[in-house]
């Protein structure tokens, strides 16, 4: 296995550090958004907003948070994640199918 990093110039290191920092900034923003969403979600329930509106909104908020987690915190947005993405989508598809059937057509 080749290891190009053995002779990596420090300039490269600096550059990478900066990149990491940039990414970290994104992560913090993501985090803040997630906290915000959570507040919104809890707020809606506590204030007893109409449930026809609340439930879909809650689900959408949850889905967005999950996308944040996967793409930012778990780096699925980065390259080299094709297979992971494929598998997660596969899993999510089966998962979605399961939940949809359990909660709709198939139940009496």
């Amino acid at each position, binding site marked *: 296995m080749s290891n190009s990093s053995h002779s990596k110039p420090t300039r490269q290191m600096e550059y990478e550090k900066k990149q990491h920092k940039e990414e970290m900034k994104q992560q913090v923003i993501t985090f803040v958004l997630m906290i915000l969403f959570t507040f919104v979600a809890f707020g809606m329930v506590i204030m007893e907003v109409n449930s026809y509106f609340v439930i879909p909104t809650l689900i959408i908020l949850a889905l967005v948070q999950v996308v944040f987690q996967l793409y930012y915190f778990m780096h699925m947005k980065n390259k080299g994640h094709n297979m992971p993405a494929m598998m997660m989508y596969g*899993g999510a598809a089966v998962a979605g199918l399961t939940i949809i059937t359990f909660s709709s057509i198939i139940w009496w």
Partner: protein
Amino acid sequence: MSTTAAQKGGLGAAIWDYLTTVDHKKIAHLYLVAGGLFFLIGGLEAMLIRIQLMKPDNNFLAAGLYNEMITMHGTTMIFLAAMPLIFALMNAVVPLQIGARDVAFPFLNSLGFWLFLFGGLMLNVSWFTGGAPDAGWTNYAPLSTTSPGHGVDYYVMGLQISGAGTLIGGINFLVTIVNMRAPGMTYMRMPLFTWSTFVTSTLILFAFPALTVGLFLMMFDRMFGAAFFDVAKGGNVIIWEHLFWIFGHPEVYILILPLFGAFSDIFSTFSKKRLFGYSAMVFATVLIGFLGFMVWAHHMFTVGMGPIANSIFAVATMAIAVPTGIKIFNWLFTMWGGQIRMTSAMLWSVAFIPSFTIGGMTGVMLAAAAADFQYHDTYFVVGHFHYVIVGGVVFGIFAALHYWWPKMFGKVLNEKLGKLAFWPFFIGFHLTFFIQHFLGLMGMPRRYWVFLEGQGLEAGNMISTIGAFLMAIGSVIFLINVVYTAVKEKKVSGDPWDGRTLEWTMPSPPPHYNFVQTPLVRGLDPLWVEKTEGKEGMTPAEPLGDIHMPNASILPFTMSLGLFIAGFGFIYQTDDKTWLVAAVVGMAITLGSMLIRSLKDDLGHHIHKEELEEDIKKGVGK
């Protein structure tokens, strides 16, 4: 090194070698032996079933025992015979086909095997401890939750443990195929067997968790007082059916797809032609896997889901006939224009086509939701699935074993005996199961301990039983062949069939590090490509150098053993809480082993260049 140690140390060392091995080729042997034994047990159970049904009102087996027999027959055959035999083939072949030195996680590979074995043993221990599970292999609640004794508990624990092993095995093969391919082995150059292993592993990954959850719920209900399937407390018994079939339907494709792959390789080799419509074959495999997840409710047409759900699932199910048909026709056209050699492997494969087609077609008939109101839970269904499973999976395993036997053991199975085993099995198979379709339509439900006189079912059942005996004869001849070959036959070269893929580029059996030098793959059927250019073997992709190999370990064995012990603890704590000690001790062994594994660095070892040069002189790597 483990192999050399074994050669020196005699039987004890050989056993220790197999207990600790992480070599995929040896794990293949383990799977083969264990799966083979379970096949015999399952077959024996089938024979007892058939003897009981030989004549009306028979009392050969008692009613309760009969239910245990069918449950264990189904469970053993599917989980403990077919699956491990498939894993044996995948382990023996896949790393070789993609030019890898081993699987991605040799340690996990061994863990997967031992989990399966201990799970299987657990299940079969139930015979001796007061009764096997008796609610059918589908284990529908509440029959299962209210089944007295501990039989169903064994089902739950046994499948949970062996299921974990299967899941691990699946992930292992996925990573192996994604990450460990030799240079030049692109996805669209992978042999079909490797492709189907890939798709199968994906199915395992997504299907088994549903079973895991189902088994947990069942375990909680039976052992810890939960109320999932207790209608008095608001439970719903249909949840089990859904979870079981969300797993169960993909499971049947888990069984058949690897053998579709094997057939593809075999047809191509013995017709001396490249596979017809390779990319369509790959596409069809993926599509079957994909569609396999959307059809599970076709096992539940009579549950009362309503016409909308029934129609959706009916049409989705029928759709699977299309990619499967693509495969059938591609195989036919692989042979078209070829030079067909009727070896035993080819004979089983050729016999597979009409047999499986019949089974698939009755499958499509079953998929017609309304008509399934007649077929469901009758011998028509039994006929259908034995046609696909025996005519597809079992024929496939026989074909693949004949094909890869030389690679695994260095000797070609005796061809005469091979054909002698084939004919009684083939004829017996059709005798046994064809008539069952009619029995079903004439009013014989499945899982019937006795059928009564005067329903016109006597002749059919008799014929069916006779057929089963012929199958037994065929199986026994195959066993004789194995022994005969081991004793009498001569070693063969690495490429006895004029093969096309990478596994035939190395000696039989291969050295434990597989490839001396990783080969460079230059096209589909890499060996054939080299052969047509008049070359002897593959061009290496790397200079001769040290090879990194994993270390052997006993930990997979102890981890599985721990779960095995804990399983008994969980089962019997419902009678007597002191059994919890067993649960604790067992879990301690397992978790302790896991801890050791994570604390102790295991970086493997290297085989040095000098040793390799030594081996090459002895003729390895040609």
